[in-house]
């Protein structure tokens, strides 16, 4: 028999952590969806956001929530600059070139961070209380982080579906030449989209930092790069709401496989490692997705 508190706790964690996965994946997905560039340097931008929150909160006492827009603004500026410095020439270039270019940018940022801030692992404590619910404790700072993630996804969704800018972006994605013919400044759309994608990624890093509050170091983004790729493939590369759905689905899948493996372990007395197996289970899900619905689960 499975402990009901464990099930409830797993569901809550899946939802909360799923929102974080979602917003991180969104950052990756915007850049890919519009510019067709796979940002392999993704993790470095996540790390940047986490450091921004850490320093602003620890050194200046800024409320961690307010660091999210700061991170977004810094990421936006960085993405804009990156586009005109390098990626403008790489739109439509062979995939290997863009992979190498984003990889290089990522490594550069990570190493600069290591030199500037040292490889020390940092953390902070932002304690705003705990909610007790049927024997399960839900930490408010995690709820706040998940809600911020939802807000960012909603904002991006609004931007892409309800504004003239979004209309222009969609036109560019469908047919860049056609968009140019009707007078859309394609170059600018690319620049702003890149800025937006990096902005969301850095903001996502801040949200992740609020969620975890620990383990902030120059290479912290690396595992999230892999994670975001898996979720993006599940979502369908380029899909906005799909990123969120797939993130939450991934969170649930992790939780469910942990519960399932735990039950198998207890019932059969097998010597297996339930929590470690959840990752392999997640990649199995990815494989299934690619086999059955290669265009992604949430792509029209």
């Amino acid at each position, binding site marked *: 028999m499975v*402990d009901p*508190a*464990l099930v409830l*706790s*797993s569901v809550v*964690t899946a939802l*909360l*952590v799923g929102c*974080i996965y979602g917003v991180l994946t969104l950052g990756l997905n915007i850049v890919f969806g519009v510019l067709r560039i796979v940002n392999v340097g993704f993790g470095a931008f996540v790390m940047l956001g986490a450091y921004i929150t850490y320093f602003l909160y620890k050194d200046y006492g800024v409320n961690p929530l307010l660091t999210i827009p700061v991170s977004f603004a810094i990421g936006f500026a960085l993405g804009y600059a990156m586009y005109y410095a390098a990626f403008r020439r790489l739109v439509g270039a062979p995939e290997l070139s863009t992979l190498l270019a984003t990889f290089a940018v990522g490594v550069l940022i990570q190493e600069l961070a290591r030199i500037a801030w040292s490889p*020390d*692992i*940092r*953390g*902070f*404590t932002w304690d705003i209380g*705990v909610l007790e619910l049927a024997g*399960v*404790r839900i*930490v408010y700072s995690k709820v706040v982080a998940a809600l911020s993630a939802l807000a960012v996804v909603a904002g991006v969704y609004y931007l892409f579906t309800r504004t003239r800018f979004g209309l222009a972006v969609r036109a560019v994605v469908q047919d860049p030449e056609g968009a140019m013919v009707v007078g859309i400044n394609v170059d600018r759309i690319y620049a702003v989209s890149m800025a937006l994608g990096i902005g969301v990624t850095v903001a996502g890093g801040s949200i992740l930092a609020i*969620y*975890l*509050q*620990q*383990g902030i*170091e120059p290479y912290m983004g690396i*595992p999230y790069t892999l994670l975001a790729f898996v979720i993006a493939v599940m979502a369908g590369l380029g899909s906005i709401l799909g990123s969120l759905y797939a993130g939450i689905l991934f969170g649930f899948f992790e*939780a469910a496989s*942990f*519960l399932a493996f*735990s039950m198998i372990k207890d019932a059969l007395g097998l010597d297996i*490692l*339930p*929590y*470690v197996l*959840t*990752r392999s289970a997640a990649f199995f899900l990815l494989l299934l997705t690619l086999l059955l619905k290669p265009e992604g689960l949430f792509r029209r």
Partner: protein
Amino acid sequence: MPSPLRAAASNRAVIVLAAIVLVAVVAAAAILLLRGGGGEAETEAPQVQQAEEKFAGTIKIGASLSLTGRYSTEGTRTLAGALAVVEWINDNGGVEIGGKRYKLELIYYDDESQPDRVIAIVEKLIKEDGVKVLLAPYSSGLTAKAAPVAERYGVVMVSHGGASDKIFQQGYKYVVQVLTPASRYFQSTLDMIRKLDPDAKRLAIIYKESEFARTVAEGTREYAEKLGFEIVFFESYPADATDLTPILTKLKAAQPEIILGGGHFKDGVLLVKQMKEVGIKAKLIGILVAPAHPDFYKELGEIAETIVYPSQWEPSVKYSPENTPPGYEWYGPTIEEFVEYYNRVAAEVLGKPDLGLSYHAAEGGAAVLFIAKAIEEAQSLDPDRIRDAMNKIRIYTFFGKLQIDPETGLQIGHEMVVAQWQNGKRVVVWPEVVAEAAPVYPSPVWWED
């Protein structure tokens, strides 16, 4: 089209190219020389002259140490610790073989924390420098690289920074260990709990999925069962887990009295933080590695209070000739002498007065002591006789007890000390004879409401 002009041009190109190659080769050689031998050549030279009068000769100990690269801090401290003990021994009459006194000399090169460099350096030490005994490099990974080389040439190598049990399961004859292996990390912690609370029963073990932490966890389970603990939870988490809440909720439901586990720094901090978030209660929590770092308290604050951790050595531990246990012989410097020599070596020989003291230094020093004692017991520099002599050594040093398992070379004498965070400070609480303070148990932070 071989025109004369073109031939002249290509000739010139060849000359220029040759010149460039020559300059590059000379520069590379110069860099290698400076990097490899520079350090000890400058600092050791004056002492060699002095030694000629007092000593009949010099015994060379070789070492590949990480003075740069990712293990630079640990490697440099190990070096300073080893040099401190070498100097102490030389100042106290050196090593005696057949009635003659010999001076110890440490020959070392920087392996840059690179496995390939380690292999090359160990070969060089054996073939060119002719050393008969080796200090292993720092870390289990690099020690595992050096071990087969030492074994192939039949040179005794003493591991001081490689806690892995696996190295000693390969059937190597010439590789021995002075630090406590991973499988015994929590033994002294369990002994302490048994003494404090004979009724404590329910033990949870949660560890990071890594070779080191798994060895610790399995060794802990085995020893705890012997002491009569009931293992109510035994699970691992992946190194890059984002949120440990589900697995900790499961742990909470198992209602343990004692929790032992962890892995490394990053996950250890997350583990403790989320244990508190989930509302876990325990009389005592013991975590690997992470609490030994000052940042542990800086990041966690009050919830770090009363967390215990096993440590190979702490500068505040009180091993002394007076509390030498029966069956053991005191050997080498006292802790005060070690610290004094260490600080002097760090400042004067290595030029790093603010190097800082940690267990890495003590491990390096302990390895030198073990070697010196073995040579004196063997009365020879023959590797086989040194290795045989090592089997019989039972010494008590500033680092604690030293004794190896004759079969595998694993350390079986040395015990981990148990340290605890008390009022924002790390204090040694176990073993009793060397403790600074009594352990706080059960933990008011983690047990009471």
